[in-house]
Structure formats: C-alpha cells, structure tokens
C-alpha cells in the first residue's frame, strides 16, 4: 500500500517536471532538424489549399508552404500538411503543432496583436461576398432581409455578416457550422438561402455544389479580406523567411523570371536578377538558409504570376481575374520591397 502511494508521488512529480518545458523559439532549427515544414492548410478550398486528383495538396496557399520548403531545403516537396478548420487554426499554430499557417486567413488587428501571432504579408487580397440561388430572383445583397445565412464559425465572415445586416437595418437567421464541408452541404441542401464567405471562396465552393449553374455570386463586396500566411510571434528569423518567400515570388514576376527561364536567367548580367538568384550578395545566409533560396523557389514553385495562374487563373475552373492581385506596376496591390 505504501509502495503504491510512493510510486504515485514519484509519478506525479515526474509529470509535473515534464509539464514545465518552455516553448521553443527557433523554428528554423526545429524545421531543419525534422527535415520538413509542417504547414497548416484548409480542409479543402479549391485554388487555395485542396488535394488534387493525384492526392497531392495544391493551391495558392500550398505554394507558400512549398516555397518555404524550397527556400530552406532546396526541395519543395519537403512539406507535411495539417488540414485545419477555421476554429482550430490559431491554436494549432500557437501550440507549435504547425510551423506556419497559410490558410486563407484574414489579417485583422486583433489577430495580429492579441493571439501571439504575426502575419507575414498578403498573398491574396479578397473581400466578403454572398452566393444565392438564381431562382430566388435576388440581384443585390440589400434584398436579403429575412434570409437564412449559412456561415462558418470562427471566421471574420461571421462578424462582417452581422455588421453588414445591422448597418443596413436588415434581419437574418444565422446557421453556423464548424467545418467548411458542413456549411457547403447545408447550403446545397437548401437549409439556407444565402452562403457568405470570401468571394474567392464562393467561386471555389460553387464548383463543388451539385448544380453550380443554379447559383450566382452577388456583386456586393462587404469587407476587406487581406489573406496571408501567419507565424508565431517572437521568432524574427522564421518570420523573415516566410515573408521573403512571398516577396521573392513577386519580385521574380516583376523581373520576368519564371520557372521555365530561371536557369537561363542565371547568366543574366542584370544586378537585380543576380541578387535575387544568389549570384551576388549573401541574402540567404542573412536568414540562415542557402543563398540559392530564391532560385529554388522560382525553379520549383514559380513566380507569383505563375502560381496565381496555375491555381486560380483563367486556365482553371475558378477563372478568377488578377484584379487587385495584379502587380503594383500593372494597377494591382501586390508589391514587394526590393532585394538589396
């Protein structure tokens, strides 16, 4: 009996001392040690992060993961994916379960300042919209008073929806689900009249409905939704790497370097091109990775324009125009600081 108590005491103390481990700071070292990047993505949003026909993850957000892996390991396939619901995503990043979170996540002030997280940039400028059945005969969001609205929990969408209906003096009945697939199924089953989320998401979700042609996205955009990758606060090195992966893709597009011509460009005499491809300077070393980091990103993943076209552009079923996501030099908002 006493031996049992003694062993219980020992066991309890051992658990207590285990619990006292501190959160680690150097994500890059951890990532290098385990040999892959653990990337938090959505549970399936075509164009951003979804498994393709071959079962591999693909999309605009997935290409951020692949870009980071290419920069760190020179191998874009050194990624493992954690599909997360909107509700789970921040906790997964805070707890260290994933290394970065490119999961069509809206950059807001409270998320940036109160969650112990940092947004590294904006890889897609989006806005919230509404999708309805054409048979409802609605052509403006202002006609939606009294409607049932399907929405995913734990999103900025849920709050924008409230604000928009309140500001316009309209009422609605929210039907809230945790998982994206559940929202899709409920809308498809006509449980709701309206589906609301980011417009890019609506186009993507529409394709998965049983009769996509019977649905339409209303013209109103009711919010700013800058979507970007998120990392833990307090690790500046990792923050820089993720931030510059995105900037390298934009700079590459600006300089006309593509995955097809990057080897050719290695011979370029343009000092800008030489710097980005690591022929001049030690920009990679400054972040603790190889100087050919940007070469690997462009070669294996592509520049921002290529990535956009491959995942969202006119050649895909989504057919989303570049719009505000065009380069700054072409009238859009995508702008990157120079590599210098």
């Amino acid at each position: 009996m006493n031996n049992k108590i003694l062993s219980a005491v020992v066991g309890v103390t051992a658990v207590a001392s285990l619990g006292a481990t501190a959160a680690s700071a150097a994500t890059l070292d951890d990532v290098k040690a385990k040999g892959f990047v653990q990337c938090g993505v959505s549970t399936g949003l075509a164009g951003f992060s979804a498994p393709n026909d071959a079962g591999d993850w693909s999309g605009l957000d997935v290409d951020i993961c692949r870009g980071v892996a290419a920069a760190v390991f020179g191998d874009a396939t050194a990624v493992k994916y954690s599909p997360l619901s909107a509700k789970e995503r921040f906790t997964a990043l805070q707890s260290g379960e994933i290394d970065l979170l490119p999961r069509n996540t809206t950059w807001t002030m409270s998320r940036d300042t109160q969650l112990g997280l940092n947004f590294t940039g904006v890889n897609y400028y989006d806005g919230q919209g509404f999708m309805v059945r054409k048979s409802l005969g609605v052509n403006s969001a202002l006609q939606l008073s009294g409607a049932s609205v399907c929405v995913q929990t734990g999103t900025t969408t849920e709050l924008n929806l409230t604000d928009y209906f309140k500001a316009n003096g309209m009422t609605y009945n929210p039907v809230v689900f945790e998982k994206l697939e559940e929202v899709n199924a409920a809308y498809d089953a006509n449980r709701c009249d309206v589906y609301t989320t980011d417009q890019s998401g609506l186009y993507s979700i529409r394709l998965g409905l049983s009769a996509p042609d019977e649905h339409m996205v209303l013209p109103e955009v009711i919010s700013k939704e800058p979507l970007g990758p998120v990392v833990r606060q307090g690790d500046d090195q990792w923050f820089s790497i993720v931030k510059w992966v995105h900037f390298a893709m934009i700079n590459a597009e600006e300089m006309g370097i593509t995955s097809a011509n990057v080897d050719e460009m290695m011979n370029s005499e343009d000092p800008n091109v030489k710097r980005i491809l690591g022929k001049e300077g030690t920009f990679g070393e400054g972040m603790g990775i190889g100087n050919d980091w940007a070469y690997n990103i462009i070669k294996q993943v592509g520049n921002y324009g290529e990535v956009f076209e491959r995942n969202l552009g006119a050649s895909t079923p989504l057919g989303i125009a570049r719009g505000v996501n065009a380069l700054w030099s072409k009238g859009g908002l995508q702008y990157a600081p120079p590599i210098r």
Partner: protein
Amino acid sequence: MAHQEGVSADAGDSERVSLMNDPKARGLVFQALLIIAVIYLVYSGVTNAIDNLARAGIASGFGFFGERAGFDIGQSFIPYTNDSTYLRAFFVGLLNTMVVAIIGIFFATMIGFIVGLARLSKNYLVQKFATVYVETLRNIPLLLQLLFWYKAVLSILPSPRAGGLEPGVEVVFNLNNRGLYMPRIVPEGGAQLILYAFIVAVVGWILIGRWAKKRQMATGQQFPVFLTGLGLVIFLPLIAFLVTGMPLSLEYASLQGFNMVGGWVIQPEFMALLLGLSLYTASFIAEIVRAGILAVSHGQSEAAFALGLRPNLTSRLVVVPQAMRVIIPPLTSQYLNLTKNSSLAVAIGYPDLVSIFGGTVLNQTGQAVEVISITMLVYLTLSLLTSAFMNWFNSSVALVER
C-alpha cells in the same frame, strides 16, 4: 498508579513501536506527501501556462466577458443581439445545452421505459420490435445517428418556397427544412391568471393524493386520485381562461420573403439533436429498465397475486418500487451521458455551449485556456448537479429495511 498505567496500555504499546513502522503514522505522512505533490503539480501547471502565455504574447484573463460579442446566434432562449456581451453569449449557449439535455432526458426516459416494458411483453410482435429497436440504436455510433437525422431526414425536406406554400397565407402546421412551424400562443392581459390556476391545480392534485393515501391507510377506502387530479388540471385553467375573457390568441406562421415568419418554430438542428440523443439513450435505458424488472424475483408478484392484488396494482405497488432501486444508479449514468453527448451538436450546427462558447467565442478572443477551462467546468457542474439530484431520488426510493 498501576491502574492508570493499565488504562494507558494502548499508548504504551505504540511507544514501543517505532514511528517508522506505525502504519497509521506512515499512512499520514505519505498522504501528506501526495497532497503536496498534487498541489505542486497544479501550481506549476498554472504558473507555467501563465508564463508561456505571457511570453508568447497571448492575451489572458477573463476581461473578455464584458466585451461586445458582435456575432449572432440562431436560437436563443434569452434576449440576445450582436451587441450583447460574451458573458451573455455564454449563457445563451449554456441554456441551449441545458434545454436540449433536459428535454432529451425526458423523452429518453419515456421511450426507454416503454421499450423496456415492451421487451418483457408476451406479445411476440411487440417484444421483437423492441428487441430490434434496442439492438439497432445502441450499436450505431451517436454521431452517425445525429448526421442521419440531420442530413438524411430533415435536410431533404423541401424548403418553404419549394414546399408549395403561398406567400402570406397562414398555415397551422408546417414541416420544412427550416424547421417545424406551429401556432404560437400569445398571452394578453390577464393571462397570468390561467398560469396561477394551473399551479393551484397541480398543488391540489398533490394534496389530494396525500389525503387519499392517509385515508386509505386509516379506513381502507380508496379515492380516484388520478381522475380528480386530471380534472383539476384541465378544468381549473379552462375556467380561468373563460372567466378572464379568453386572453390567449394564436399566431400562425406564414411564408414571407425568404422564410416563414411568425408562429413557433423548432429548428431542424434542435430536432435532429433531440431525436438522436433521445432515441439513442432510450435504447440503453430500455435495457436498464428490463434488468431492473427482471431483478425482482417472480415470487414477489406471486405473493402479491396471492394477496388478491390485480396485475396493474401488483406492478405499481410491488414490482416497480423494487425495480427502481436497481434502475436508478445506471439511469443516472445515462442522464450524464446524454448531457455530455449533447456537445456533439457542433457537428450539426446546433448552437450549444461548445459551439458558441468553445467555438466562436474562443476564436474571436483567442483565449483557449480560459474558454476551454470554463467549458469543462460547466459540464462538470452540470454532471455533479444531475448526480446529486439522482442520488437524492435514489435514497428516497431505496428499500427501507427494518
């Protein structure tokens, strides 16, 4: 003196045994050590969490309760708007959980008792039907049953606009994929008198029951308590209704715009959850009831028959009271299970505590530690309260041994 030494002989014995070998002293020391270790474990866990939250720059504390929630909730039993606080949103979720749990417990008990008795029936069809019910429902995971009721049954109903309803025309009952619509009773001035009449009738029923029992004990004469009580409960409020000039009116639902407006609505999420929880738990309760009744030896009913009691009275006065003491402890576990299982609501979009508080509020505030701790504490409290109530009930029906 010798006598005194003799009296304290026990103390003298323990002095001879060293403290190390005294089982009582050793027990106390080790228990004290264990308590210290547990306190240290909790203390280090809490301080460690606070330290790490501060280091990671995550906001902590309970200040968020007073902030504006800013989101809407589909079903609420207390007034709630998006301008309400997180605290109020918490109570909305708590109430939604408690309502589905209490109604679920009620239906599960009713169905469970009926099916349990049916399994003991001598009627072949009734008995086989009950067996099939129990074996099917208790062997399919609850989550699947919830999804079945929600997706396979309620979701495929037509929408109000597709259901052939004319806009603006009032309907008495309508079941569509937005819910079950029924007339709502709208009280007007003086309507509270009907409620008072009802309460008086219920109290009267109880008092008559006590009086009748006393009289039967004293004189052996019986009194039709049930019929009298039923009459009171029906006619007293009815008289109040007529006397006060019929102050109740019915509001019917009608299709306006996108949705049904007016009336009283039970949302499909609530229906699916209630159906799933009640039917699933009822299959377990049925087995508990059957076991309880079979536990009463056959000799008891034979003895009752020998005394000249009719079968109806035999089961009410002899079998059921003895079965109850076997039934109640496992029944308590089923009630606790049902309450906790209601958190599966999140899968079908019913706004319960886990969905509203552990979902939306957690995500808006990002304060996982606080929110999850409170959620767990709430379920613990609910379970302990249920348990306490059932223990009290159990002791009141326990066999009084003389």
